[in-house]
């Protein structure tokens, strides 16, 4: 029979580092998926996930077992991703005139017939990635958690450690930032 998370954690805390391995194997797919929401390059994604596991190991003593280990780990993952976004604020003055051909075609189709444009297209996914990369770190995090992952304000507050009010304020600002980016996209492409 497989040991439970609580048993593995207890063993790690007693000094059996090898018991940490099954936890890494079990939860790494979720941590990788979260990290890939915030970083594009695979080397950056791996750095984030390594950092998450290093922090998890270091702070394992503070895990009280009241909530599932996965929730605790995902909080660490989201906060590490936020730290990464803040540390890697890229040049956010990129022009949308450098869109790739598929992205440009998708936009043309959208302008021609907004209702029939395919939202499953890879080009649309790339375009939203490009727009998210232009947002500030808090705006990107809030948009990703709220609009893309569909989390509630309360869930975001728990994940990020921000107050509910702060999440609401940041969500409001994030939507305004997003709006500006879309306006810039329309201006660069069609005006």
């Amino acid at each position, binding site marked *: 029979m497989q040991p439970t998370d609580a048993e593995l954690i207890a063993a790690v805390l007693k000094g059996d*580092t*090898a018991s*940490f*391995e099954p936890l*890494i*194997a079990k939860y*790494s*797919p*979720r941590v*990788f*998926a979260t990290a*890939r*929401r915030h970083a594009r390059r695979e080397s950056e994604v*791996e750095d984030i*996930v*390594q950092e998450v*596991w*290093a922090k998890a*190991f270091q702070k394992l003593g503070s895990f009280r077992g009241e909530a599932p280990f996965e929730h605790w780990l995902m909080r660490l993952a989201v906060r590490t991703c936020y730290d990464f976004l803040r540390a890697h604020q890229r040049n956010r003055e990129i022009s949308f005139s450098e869109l790739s051909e598929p992205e440009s075609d998708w936009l043309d189709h*959208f*302008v021609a017939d*907004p209702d029939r*444009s395919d*939202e*499953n*297209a*890879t080009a*649309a*996914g790339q*375009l*939203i*990635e490009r*727009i*998210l990369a232009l947002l500030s770190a808090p705006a990107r995090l809030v948009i990703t958690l709220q*609009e*893309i992952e*569909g989390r509630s304000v309360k869930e975001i507050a728990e994940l990020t450690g921000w107050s509910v009010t702060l999440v609401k304020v940041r969500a409001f600002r994030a939507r305004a930032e*997003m*709006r500006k980016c*879309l*306006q810039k996209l*329309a201006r660069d492409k*069609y005006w």
Partner: protein
Amino acid sequence: MNLDKLQKKLFAAARANPPSDRVPYAFEKRILARLAARRVEDARSQWGAALWRGAAACVAVTVLLSVWSFSGFNRPRSGANLSQDLEHTLLASADEVDNNW
């Protein structure tokens, strides 16, 4: 261009294209190796930090004692200078002997 609709479409696109949850080969082994290396480093850095803290405390005590010794708190209340005090202290027993005679 309808920006509201575009925003909705783009969010829907992001939801429709979730990121991969693929984990690189033997990733957990790599993490464990890194954690083991970090533990050795941690032990060394803890020793280093403890020694630095000890050194800082010693410097602080030295500075405090220096300040105290140069300040007016430890001056003799009699107003005599150090050489006279020393002489009195050393010859105190001799004075007692003289008085007894």
